[in-house]
C-alpha cells in the first residue's frame, strides 16, 4: 500500500487489520487519516505523496497503517474505481 493513491475506507481498515472491517461502518466512530465521520465502506480518501503512515480509529481502538513509499503516478485502486462509478454525480444541467 503506497501513498499518492485514492483508496476506499474499507481498504484502509483492512490494511489496518481491523477485525471484520465491513461491519464497522455506520455503527460507531470511524476516523481515517484525520478524516472523521466515515459511515460508508466506499468512502473515498486520497493519501498524498508525502504521507508515510495512516492513523485509523474505530470506536475507541487505534490502528496504524505504514505505507511503503509513494506511487510515481497518482493511482486509483480497483475498489476506489468501483466506488467512483457507484458514486458518480447525477447529470443534471444547471438551470439559469
Amino acid at each position, binding site marked *: 500500500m503506497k501513498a499518492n493513491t*485514492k483508496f476506499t475506507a474499507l481498504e484502509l481498515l483492512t490494511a489496518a487489520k481491523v477485525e471484520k472491517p465491513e461491519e464497522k461502518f455506520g455503527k460507531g466512530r470511524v476516523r481515517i487519516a484525520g*478524516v*472523521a465521520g466515515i459511515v460508508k465502506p466506499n468512502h473515498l480518501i486520497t*493519501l*498524498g505523496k508525502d504521507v508515510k503512515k495512516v492513523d485509523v480509529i474505530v470506536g475507541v481502538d487505534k490502528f496504524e497503517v505504514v505505507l511503503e513509499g509513494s506511487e510515481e503516478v*497518482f493511482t*486509483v485502486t480497483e475498489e476506489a474505481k468501483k466506488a467512483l462509478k457507484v458514486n458518480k454525480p447525477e447529470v443534471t444541467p444547471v438551470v*439559469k
Partner: protein
Amino acid sequence: MASFVWLLQGTSPTTIDATDIIQFAGATFDSAITVDAYNDSTHVESSIGADDSSGNTPNNVKFISQTGGGAGDSQADWGDGTEDIDAILEAECTLKITFSHGSAVAVTANTFFAFDGTTPATAPTDIDVRAAELADIIFTQAEGSGSALSITDSGSATDHDFYILVSASPESVGEKTAFAFRMALTYT
C-alpha cells in the same frame, strides 16, 4: 498558517495569482471561442492583459461529451484526441491546486466551482463550465456553489495537491468577465 497555490499546468507550470485571469480561448491567446463550442487553449492572463503562460505550453482540456464515452463516461480532448476522462494523468490536468498548512491536517468538504465573481451561489453569466477531479469518470457542471464539483477527502498531511480538469463554453457572443473560480474546503 494555511495557503493556496494555483497553477495552470503545462510543459512548465504557470502560477495563477489572485489578480490573474484564467483565460479560456480559441486556438491562441485572446482569440474567441465560437458560441456553444469549448476552449481550444487555456492561458494565464495578468491583470494588465499580458500572457503570463506564454512559453510554458499550458495544458488544455476540451470538453467533448457528458456521457458519450465507455460505460457512459464523460469525454474530453487534452491533446491526444477524444478520450474518457478517467484516462487523464495528473500532469495532463488543467489545474494543480495545492493547499498547505504548517502542521498536518485532513481536508474534507472540498468543493470547486465557477461563479459570477461576486456571489458564490450564482452561476457565471452565459458560460457553460465543466469540471472534474483527476480520476473522476464524469464531469460536473460546476456553476455556483450549489452545483459544485465535490473533491475527494484528503488524509492528514501538510501539503494537499488537487488536480482539476476544467473546460468552458460561451453561451452568447462577447468576452465573459462575470466568471471566477473558487475552491472551498474544511481542514482539521
